[in-house]
């Protein structure tokens, strides 16, 4: 994940197909058979993305301007939305929650990232691991944990001084918990690249540490901070797991969609609310793209790495902060694990595995867990294969400029689409009786397709960035030696990019395990998923088993990360010798 966000920031400045063209266009006036066949695969890729991303969104948009009978009614659904006070109040609720979480997470992420990259506190490696742990758990886990910590039978109930955890307080704490790692990783990237020469100049000019902070540190991290703010805002406003579990009567847009669709069978209104939810996401998306262009312009190749000086008071303060944040994260996770092991909260505190007997609960039992593993593996294998090869074609295949432009557009688009919206769009598109693909509705296939599409962008950017580090000369040399390009891919590009390939695979696996939003509308009787089971068990009031399943998901993701680490650091080390001199 580190590399994922780091790389995405450098990618935007140069369009990948542009450099390829620059190198090749004059050499190859006519396309070889080789190029035509690879081009054919690229065409299939563009079509696949068009079908899996663009068309479903089109169905969603058209549904939002239709009535139940499928007649066009213009903006009537939106007008009704504004007229319904309970729905309209969700807008301000959502904004309030998202803004508050944004401020909290952005400041915390900045401080912790600063502690890691700009101070000399001990245990940095440990903190780095602990602080990103929440990313391995479904967003429902902190919410469930909060019930046990601050609910009416919670062990820390008094801390809230009579306020209820079910509502804005709970949503904000839960949202901060699960969005924090995302923010931290972007912030670390923003703070990682600093030019020591600036600090030396500041010192030489006699600037105070405070002045140096405001004139050197902060401006350099400016775009990172804005980017984090937008990302957190979007993640929170589009998340539906946390408010669902701990939101009480505090309605937000994301839960409204769920209620409209699931509770009231009002698909058209659900579609309309989805379109409204798309707006902040698209705004974030555009801002983020724009910022990344600006930020990459800031970095120069002449920058000298900076080593933080010893500042005992500041270091101690930051160390204390890191201990505090880590304890909160570990505390929330530990509470979930403990709650999952308690036999009958709060009346029988003896420990047992009773809550892990999922087969007696809602949500599909242990089958749902195995389904999730299956989904994770399929998504990781198929997704990585497809994404990496297509990114390779976009980056390294000569010509096909227009096609590549479309591919890039479709590949970036999913970043702007919240999972809930994508899931709903998939129902509309894939369950239409006249869609020849409607056979995949209700199967594992649609879950795999949806999950890959949902998380496409980050993987695409990771692959593209990694591929751009390889000299294009390999392709031109192999072309002049008449080696088919596919062989060059197999012998050079793939082995060299293996770390990125692993990153993509593990990113896809973890997200497939933890995601709820898109798949909640798409699972079927034999494709129940663990993350959805958490939601459904909580819904039915089986909160301890829900905690247990969330813990299972987290442990599985930890194992996946461990395997990723082992593969990357042990098995594949030999493919990366070229990086060290």
């Amino acid at each position, binding site marked *: 994940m580190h590399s994922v966000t780091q790389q995405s920031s450098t990618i935007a400045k140069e369009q990948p197909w542009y450099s390829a063209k620059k190198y090749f266009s004059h050499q190859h006036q006519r396309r070889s058979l080789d190029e035509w066949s690879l081009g054919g695969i690229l065409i299939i890729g563009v079509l696949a993305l068009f079908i899996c991303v663009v068309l479903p969104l089109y169905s969603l948009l058209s549904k939002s301007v239709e009535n139940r009978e499928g007649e066009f009614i213009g903006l009537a659904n939106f007008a009704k939305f504004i007229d*319904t*006070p*309970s729905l309209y*109040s*969700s807008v301000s*609720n959502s904004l309030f929650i998202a803004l508050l979480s944004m401020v909290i997470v952005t400041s915390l992420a900045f401080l912790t990232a600063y502690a890691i990259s700009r101070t000399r506190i001990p245990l940095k490696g440990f903190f780095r691991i602990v602080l990103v742990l929440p990313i391995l758990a479904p967003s429902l886990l902190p919410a469930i944990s909060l*019930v046990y910590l601050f*609910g*009416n*039978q919670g062990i820390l109930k008094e801390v809230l001084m009579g306020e*209820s955890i*079910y*509502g*804005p307080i709970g949503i904000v704490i839960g949202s901060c918990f699960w969005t924090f790692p995302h923010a931290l990783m972007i912030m670390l990237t923003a703070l990682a690249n600093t030019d020591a020469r600036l600090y030396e100049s500041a010192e030489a000019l006699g600037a105070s540490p405070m002045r140096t902070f405001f004139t050197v540190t902060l401006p350099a991290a400016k775009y990172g901070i804005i980017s984090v703010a937008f990302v957190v805002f979007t993640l929170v406003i589009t998340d539906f797991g946390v408010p*669902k579990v701990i939101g*009480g*009567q*505090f*309605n937000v847009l994301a839960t409204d969609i769920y*209620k409209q*669709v*699931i*509770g*009231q*069978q009002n*698909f058209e209104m659900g579609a309309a609310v989805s379109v409204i939810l798309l707006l902040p996401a698209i705004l974030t998306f555009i801002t983020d793209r724009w910022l990344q262009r600006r930020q990459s312009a800031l970095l120069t190749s002449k920058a000298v790495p900076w080593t933080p000086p010893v500042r005992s008071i500041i270091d101690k303060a930051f160390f204390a902060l890191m201990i505090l944040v880590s304890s909160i994260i570990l505390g929330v996770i530990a509470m979930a694990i403990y709650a999952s092991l308690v036999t*009958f*909260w*709060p*009346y*029988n505190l003896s420990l047992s595995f009773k809550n892990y007997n999922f*087969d*007696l*609960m*809602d*949500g599909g039992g242990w089958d749902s867990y195995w389904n999730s593993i299956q989904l994770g593996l399929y998504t990781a294998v198929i997704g990585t294969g497809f994404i990496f090869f297509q990114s390779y074609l976009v980056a390294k295949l000569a010509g096909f400029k227009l096609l590549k432009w479309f591919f890039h557009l479709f590949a970036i688009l999913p970043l702007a689409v919240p999972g809930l919206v994508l899931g709903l769009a998939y*129902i509309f598109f894939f*369950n*239409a*009786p006249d869609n020849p693909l*409607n056979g995949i*509705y*209700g199967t594992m296939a649609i879950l795999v397709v949806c999950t890959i599409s949902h998380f496409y962008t980050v993987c695409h950017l990771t692959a593209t960035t990694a591929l751009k580090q390889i000299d294009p000369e390999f392709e031109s040399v192999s072309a002049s030696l008449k080696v088919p390009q596919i062989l060059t891919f197999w012998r050079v590009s793939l082995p060299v990019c293996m770390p990125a390939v692993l990153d993509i695979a593990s990113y896809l696996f973890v997200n497939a395990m933890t995601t709820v939003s898109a798949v909640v509308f798409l699972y*079927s*009787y*034999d494709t129940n998923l663990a993350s959805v089971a958490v939601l*459904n068990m909580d*819904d*039915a*009031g*089986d*909160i301890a088993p829900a905690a247990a399943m969330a813990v299972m998901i987290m442990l599985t993701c930890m194992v996946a990360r461990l395997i990723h680490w082992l593969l990357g650091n042990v098995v594949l080390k030999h493919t990366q010798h070229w990086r060290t001199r």
Partner: protein
Amino acid sequence: MTQRALFKRLAATAGIALVSISAHAAKTELTVYTAIEAEDLKKYAARFNEDNPDIKINWVRDSTGIITAKLLAEKDNPQADVVWGLAATSLMLLKNDGILETYKPNGYDKISPKFKDLYKEPVWVGMDAWMAAICFNTVEAEKLGLPKPTSWQDLTKPVYKDHIIMPNPNSSGTGFLDVSSWLQMFGEDKGWDYMDALHSNVSRYTHSGSKPCKLAASGEIPIGISFAFRAAKSKKQGAPLDIVFPTEGLGWDMEATSIIKGTKKLEAARKLVDWTISKKANEMYSEGYAVVAMPGIAKPIDYFPEDAESLMIDNDFEWSAKNRDAILTQWQTRYDSKSEPK
């Protein structure tokens, strides 16, 4: 080995293979949508398979609102073959959308009229009745000094402020039967007045009908408005609960069964529906439900009052189904925006 012997052996192998394939193929799989409590699903399927080993049930289980929504969503491309165990009011709604197949199952005459679709060509048939009940956590109530309520009206007393959780009728069948029963018992105006008063005591509304009772069982809230089946189960598991059956009367709904129009496995679907109203099925329902479709089967259930059936209100399902949309919209405008922090 002569050629003939070889041929014989091959033929035999092929024969065995064929038989095993056809035996496998004979097992029809039915996709059955249901809102029956999750813990009962395995039992229901196993009992059915004792008599029909050739039909495999694939359950899709969710709360009443979700199952209803799913069926409506898939209207043009139905995924389910049968609905076994969904609120009759929901089935009536689905019937109006033309989703259900008419079928008069074998043994239809043997069940009480209350559990029948009143039309000549019935599309659904009832199984059992589930009724409202209040789960009252004695331990928490004592801590908070709350008296035990005995009627619906009791719940509006100021002493219970923020100590009550009930299901949202928009998603929960139990929530809807509560609301519809109050409107029928107290009359429309008084009914809404009652809910206004109750609303100020409700701490929050849950998505599912069993959650309020489970929350009461775990002490998260002292009073959960839920249904009797769930209450009895939680009490049996050792939760410190008293089950209150309000004196004014109990709202109730039927769990019912129907075939989805357009199923490609009509024969198997009919077999299943026949079985769901058989004596054996009714005996199975009566293990958890005090009132079942076939007269003379029901037996007393632990923690249920003996006269459970007499407490049930005279429920007008046609009225409920017809006004379902209007009631839910009204309810939503009144109470769903409990968004301002108290």
